[in-house]
């Protein structure tokens, strides 16, 4: 187990390095002069040159890259010119809302998706299974902003039960926090839940045909033990993969949903920084998202090993 873990972690380092290089190159090859964007069209050539000097834009590109990397290793992602604060601080400020939203959406998705997917697989071909499949298909095809807008119309405009948009941090009280997050979380959770449920169903269908399921039934075990103890754990690897992916996607910022509900999360930070040409923020945020992907993947790998002993032993 320890060996397996170490191997996984070491294999992540080159991935992160490649991501950092690509991230840097893309941002720096994008046409547009940050200095002129920031100073506006009235700026004189002199002012522009001075700012470029200040921003380090006159240095050769590889020098800038190494400066950036060295900064990262010291926990410094750069400086936001527009917000006039360190990039790490800007990210930190926007991370809270995104994490809250992601976790809540994922909890909603998993809570419904797994039991429903399992039930559908157990009753394969029944009306329940078929209507489930239709709803899951619908959940995947409906855009989350559309669901979000309808939720707003219904619960905020029509009934006036929930605030239409905005965000309140957890420190303002859990109830208040959830009041603002529940609608965006549902509109995100439906899509993710539909994906997870479909994977649960198909993975369970496969596992239920396995011989060891018949062995479990031949022991006289109750149906729910056969399903949840013997089948689900075996079916869980592909389900976990989908959950990990969906989590990573949401952490990367649910740009549209954050915009619809006006939530100051990572998605909004990226959009605003792109509009403002706040390069160091974009660069830092992209790197942070990539690191989050890698980290979530690592967690998923660890969970694989926990769920399936063959992963634990074979690869050590």
């Amino acid at each position, binding site marked *: 187990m320890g060996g397996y873990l170490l191997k996984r972690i070491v294999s992540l380092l080159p991935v992160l390095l490649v991501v950092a290089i690509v991230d840097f190159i893309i941002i720096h090859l994008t046409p547009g002069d940050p200095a002129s964007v920031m100073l506006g069209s009235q700026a004189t050539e002199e002012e522009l040159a001075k700012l470029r000097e200040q921003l380090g834009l006159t240095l050769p590109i590889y020098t800038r890259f190494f400066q950036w990397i060295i900064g990262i290793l010291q926990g410094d992602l750069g400086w936001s010119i527009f917000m006039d604060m360190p990039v790490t601080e800007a990210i930190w400020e926007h991370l809270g809302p995104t994490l809250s939203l992601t976790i809540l959406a994922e909890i909603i998705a998993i809570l419904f998706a797994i039991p429903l997917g399992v039930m559908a697989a*157990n*009753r*394969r*071909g*029944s009306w329940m299974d078929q209507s489930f499949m239709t709803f899951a298909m619908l959940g995947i095809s409906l855009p989350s902003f559309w669901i979000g807008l309808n939720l707003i119309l219904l619960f905020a405009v029509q009934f006036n039960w929930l605030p239409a948009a905005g965000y309140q941090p957890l420190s303002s009280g859990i109830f208040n926090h959830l009041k603002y997050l529940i609608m965006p979380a549902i509109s995100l959770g439906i899509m993710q839940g539909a994906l997870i449920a479909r994977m649960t169903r198909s993975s369970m269908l496969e596992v*239920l*045909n*396995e*011989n*060891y399921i*018949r*062995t*479990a*039934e*031949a*022991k*006289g*075990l*109750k*149906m729910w033990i056969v399903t949840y103890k*013997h089948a689900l*754990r*075996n079916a869980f690897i592909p389900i976990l993969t989908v959950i990990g992916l969906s989590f990573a996607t949401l952490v990367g910022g649910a740009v549209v949903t954050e915009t619809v509900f006006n939530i100051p999360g990572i998605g909004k930070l990226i959009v605003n920084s792109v509009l403002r040409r706040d390069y160091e923020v974009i660069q830092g945020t992209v790197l942070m998202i990539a690191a989050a992907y890698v980290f979530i993947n690592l967690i998923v790998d660890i969970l694989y090993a926990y*769920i*399936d*002993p*063959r992963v634990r*032993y074979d690869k050590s």
Partner: protein
Amino acid sequence: MTLLKVKNLKTRFSTELGEVTAVDGVSFHVNAGETVGLVGESGCGKSVTSLSILRLFRKHSGTKLAGEIFFEQKELLTSSMEEMQEIRGNQISMIFQDPMSSLNPVYTVGNQISESLMLHQKLSKKEAYEKTIEMLSLVGIPSPEKRVNDYPHQLSGGMRQRVMIAMGLCCHPKLLIADEPTTALDVTIQAQILDLMKDLQEQLQMGIMLITHDLGVVAEVCDRVLVMYLGQIVEEASVETLFENPKHPYTIGLMKSIPTIDGKRGEKLHVIEGMVPSLHQIPAGCRFAPRCPFADEKCRSHPPDLIEVSHSHKARCWHHERIGIGGGNAIAIGNQ
């Protein structure tokens, strides 16, 4: 005492090509303490017969069961799911054909055995764990107190089959159904496992239904034999009678497939010509006619019944009087 009595069992599956009857009117019984062999080539319906007894088909698979199955006084096909769960693994145990895929890969073997003990014998976790180690040692697994914490993939095929046997026997069932329990194993282990089953049978007065395609195994351990072909029983007799005086050409064909003493075990010396037909194309007359050296017009058009040819010896062949083995070298004679 009759433990199991199966009457006119029919098992139908719906497939893409239409419905098939994999087991078609099978009747037999197993007494307490007795070992009954069920033999036939692969695909004849042996496994389906055994799965039908415990009704181990998925609810939505469209499998239909008909007939009657009495276990002691209880009719199984009309029993509720709860009643079946009470019998499964407790009164009737099954050992499955493929030990590689029949154990759950994500739980230790100890977990999988003690699960049965906690369920049926109401043992505590600790008691079940101790009993599990005892069972593992009983089936000849070395250092059972270590192996109990192993996962199936850490064990060899022979060890896994022993685990399956330990699992099948741990609740002292009255009837053990063993589906090709030794096919995947090499000869020495095969013999060990068969001996073990016989030993336990004597201790527990257990009835055994032993499914195999190997008549050599039957000769070693069975009291009575059922020969199955394409979903039907074609011959039934005591072991002695069957080997001395087989009355069905299919049985004789199977016997010729038994390797001789000097030939290596598992090396088939003779194979019955042709293949088992598909369930979608069951011959109109005798089901064995397309492969039978004695088939005539009557055989091809009229299906024979399973009839008593002598005391407790049944065969399903129009020409059973003219069929037998000659010269002690297991060759069918037919004076057509």
